[in-house]
């Protein structure tokens, strides 16, 4: 029964309590007419999606490391699908994409799960980078060659390599830390996702100055600062469940939310360039899975390296 009394379990109890509160507040705001359509519908949809997402995360955390790794492998699959869909890849890239989906992706997660960190670190940035274009080169189509192979490589880096760093955190065995690495994964996901939500709320309420108007029409400086700072406070408040001191927790929270925000901007620029608003339609009210994962994608590797260098 230990897994129901671990710090990560308590994080989820807190989240469920918060979701109940959010649902009640949203219903009150909608019923009393303070929030009207279309915002009301979107709000309901978003909260429902959060119930599903947090429910699924709670379930896989209860099931263990295998379930978490498998879950993020499936997330990678869905994310890579969204990414590959909007690239310039064409028929001649079919074999390369098939290898990315059916060979490299599963292999990466097997390397993570069976703790072969050296190969997990090299497979995509080195071997897929060197060998995957070979498959395409023999197709003989040179038009847009660099664009197409780069896009496939970018898709693998963003959707598979970076995402696989989240379950990779579970393989860390941190000396003198009372809890398991599960707690750190929960801390990372909570802080980074909270930063996203809080940036949205701060931006909606006091946002004036657009951060990068050509890249993202909704991100404001006020939202960014307010969201990152309040998520950092949240991260610091959770210091007792981390191996960090309170000011270290603050600095690390600031770093991961910073990378998360930059990730969101970079992914927005790609969407904008390709003329789409959302990556997909998988998560109701949120767009695609990449719309939800983008900030984690850019913060997970940094978080893993901070832990590996500073606490091991």
């Amino acid at each position, binding site marked *: 029964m230990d897994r129901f009394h671990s710090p990560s379990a308590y994080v989820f109890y807190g989240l469920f309590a918060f979701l109940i509160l959010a649902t009640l507040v949203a219903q009150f705001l909608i019923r009393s007419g303070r929030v009207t359509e279309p915002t009301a519908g979107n709000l309901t949809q978003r909260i429902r999606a959060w119930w599903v997402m947090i429910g699924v995360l709670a379930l896989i955390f209860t099931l263990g490391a295998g379930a978490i790794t498998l879950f993020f492998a499936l997330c990678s699959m869905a994310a890579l699908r969204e990414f590959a869909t909007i690239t310039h890849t064409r*028929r001649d890239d079919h074999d390369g*994409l098939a290898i990315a989906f059916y060979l490299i992706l599963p292999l990466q997660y097997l390397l993570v799960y069976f703790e072969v960190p050296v190969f997990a670190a090299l497979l995509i940035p080195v071997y897929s980078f060197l060998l995957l274009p070979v498959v395409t080169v023999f197709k003989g189509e040179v038009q847009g060659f660099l664009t197409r192979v780069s896009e496939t490589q970018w898709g693998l880096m963003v959707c598979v390599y970076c995402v696989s760093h989240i379950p990779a955190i579970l393989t860390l065995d941190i000396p003198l830390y009372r809890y398991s690495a599960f707690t750190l994964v929960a801390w990372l996901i909570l802080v980074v996702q909270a930063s996203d939500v809080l940036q949205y709320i701060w931006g909606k309420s006091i946002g004036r100055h657009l951060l990068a108007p050509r890249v993202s029409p909704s991100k404001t400086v006020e939202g960014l600062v307010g969201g990152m700072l309040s998520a950092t406070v949240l991260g610091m408040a959770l210091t007792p469940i981390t191996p960090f001191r309170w000011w270290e927790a603050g600095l690390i929270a600031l770093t991961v939310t910073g990378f998360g925000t930059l990730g969101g901007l970079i992914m927005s620029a790609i969407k904008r360039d390709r003329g789409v608003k959302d990556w997909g339609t998988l998560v109701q009210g949120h767009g695609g899975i990449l719309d939800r994962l983008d900030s984690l994608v850019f913060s997970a590797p940094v978080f893993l390296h901070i832990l590996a260098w500073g606490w091991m």
Partner: protein
Amino acid sequence: MTATIAARMTRAGLVAAARVLLSLRAIDLPPKGSGPRVLVANHVSHADFVALWSVLPKQLRLQTRPVAGADYWERSDLRRWTANHVFRAVLIDRDPASRRSDPVEAVAEVLRSGEDVIFFPEGTRNLTDARLLPLKSGIYHLARTVPEVEIVPAWILNLDRILPKGAFLPVPLNCAVRFGTPMQVGPGESREDFLNRLSSAMLALAEAKG
């Protein structure tokens, strides 16, 4: 016609599989008016019909029948069963030399009974590099025979990238079906003009973004 349980289960399975594997969605599906309509789409793979059919809302799907080549679908018992009971296909003989009944009349009959049809106006699967083959005149004759029918142009996106010719492993990409504004054949509009208008409407959907 009552669907047998096996046919119903096959149908539900196919639709669920298509929706999950292809992450299908409909873009700009026009609401159904009072009259019958013909959904007209590009044809690049065997999965086209299932894709187009699966994005329709269930009520609409059950009264939408594909028009398919009898030569292909009557080749085995399984295919014949699938065509007749799972898809409720309107099978037509594509060979003018051998056929005994008028295929346009067979489809027109279905439309007059109030059901919609899915029609691939290229007449066959497009295995070339061109985006769209020259349209056959069947769709023009159909629109002339049933003047109140609405022709809804549609474009099935990405299926040619998911399973290009010669490949046996589908790559999972998001697939969508984009619909255009319903059109009708104008009074006195010639066959060439109508077919040109229809193919430009379809190609415009292929180029559209979002």
